[in-house]
């Protein structure tokens, strides 16, 4: 390749890489946050409609807190990233924050205090759907997380398969031993009886 061609190729490649960078880190990132917010807004609307149907009061602490939680997730959706989650998990496991868990247990208590089990189930379902959305957003947004998850799933499957094979072998050998022992006992018993 001549020097002129080398220069041109270098600049074309740089320009294309900068374009890809813009697409990934500016356009795609903001789109993903907007899409997550859109899904959460739809879920919050559904929750509002559920309360409007008369199933639960707007002033009920369980409804109020769930809505507040959704609002928080919508507002801070741009901060939901894998490095941030990893950091929070590491810090919280090293220095546990009792206030953090208290918020969750308080909400659980408010849910349990609801008189109607159907409403309780429905609010739990809303919460699960929200968590599902957040988890999907986290997993699909981080290639590192996706690779780790695949590795973890494969390791879990392999270790699970190995473990169940060992357990099955152990159970089978134990059963065989027991059966042998019973048979031996019977034989020796019958011999005694014959004797």
């Amino acid at each position, binding site marked *: 390749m001549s*020097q002129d061609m080398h220069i041109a190729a270098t600049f074309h490649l740089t320009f294309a890489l900068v374009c890809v960078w813009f697409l990934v880190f500016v*356009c795609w990132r903001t789109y993903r946050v907007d899409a997550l917010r859109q899904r959460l807004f739809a879920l919050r609307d559904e929750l509002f409609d559920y309360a409007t149907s008369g199933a639960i009061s707007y002033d009920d602490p369980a409804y109020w807190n769930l809505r507040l939680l959704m609002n928080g997730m919508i507002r801070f959706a741009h901060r939901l990233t894998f490095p941030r989650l990893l950091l929070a998990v590491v810090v919280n496991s090293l220095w546990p924050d009792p206030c953090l868990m208290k918020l969750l247990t308080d909400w659980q208590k408010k849910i349990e205090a609801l008189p109607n089990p159907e409403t309780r189930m429905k609010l739990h379902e809303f919460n699960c759907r929200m968590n599902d959305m957040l988890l999907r957003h986290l997993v699909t947004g981080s290639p590192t997380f996706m690779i780790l998850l695949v590795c973890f799933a494969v390791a879990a499957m392999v270790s699970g398969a190995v473990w169940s094979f060992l357990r099955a072998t152990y159970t089978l050998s134990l059963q065989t031993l027991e059966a042998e022992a019973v048979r031996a006992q019977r034989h020796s018993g019958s011999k005694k009886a014959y004797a």
Partner: protein
Amino acid sequence: MAYDGFLRVANDEYRQRQLELQYGFRFKLLDIIGQALNRLIPGAVLVLIAGFTYLSIKSLAGQHTFADIGLKVLADVKISEALAYVIAGGSVMFGLKERKLRRTTVERLTERTIQLERELDARRSSSGLTTRGTTRSEDQL
């Protein structure tokens, strides 16, 4: 006796407040580190691109002027490549325009929904986003 009780309660409240502040500070610190990491990755990628480009053209230093290089780059652009650039650039522009339009529509439509929902629930809580559905500047850190 009553004074002792008052002192104990005041002390407990003080300790609780201190703990809350401590955890609040830690949460904020975590947030700052998380955001810094979030910005570090795109920045590092950009530095990497710049570094590779620099190393690639370093060997040609002093042999060519910028005008010379510019002309060579432009002369090397083929029609098919130029067309690809135009299509890619046009698509990005189209996406950005569509996004702007969506945000304007969000601003126009949500006010009515908020009004109607407030009629049913006077204490209706909000997500705290801007009227266009974007992140507030103070939340961006």
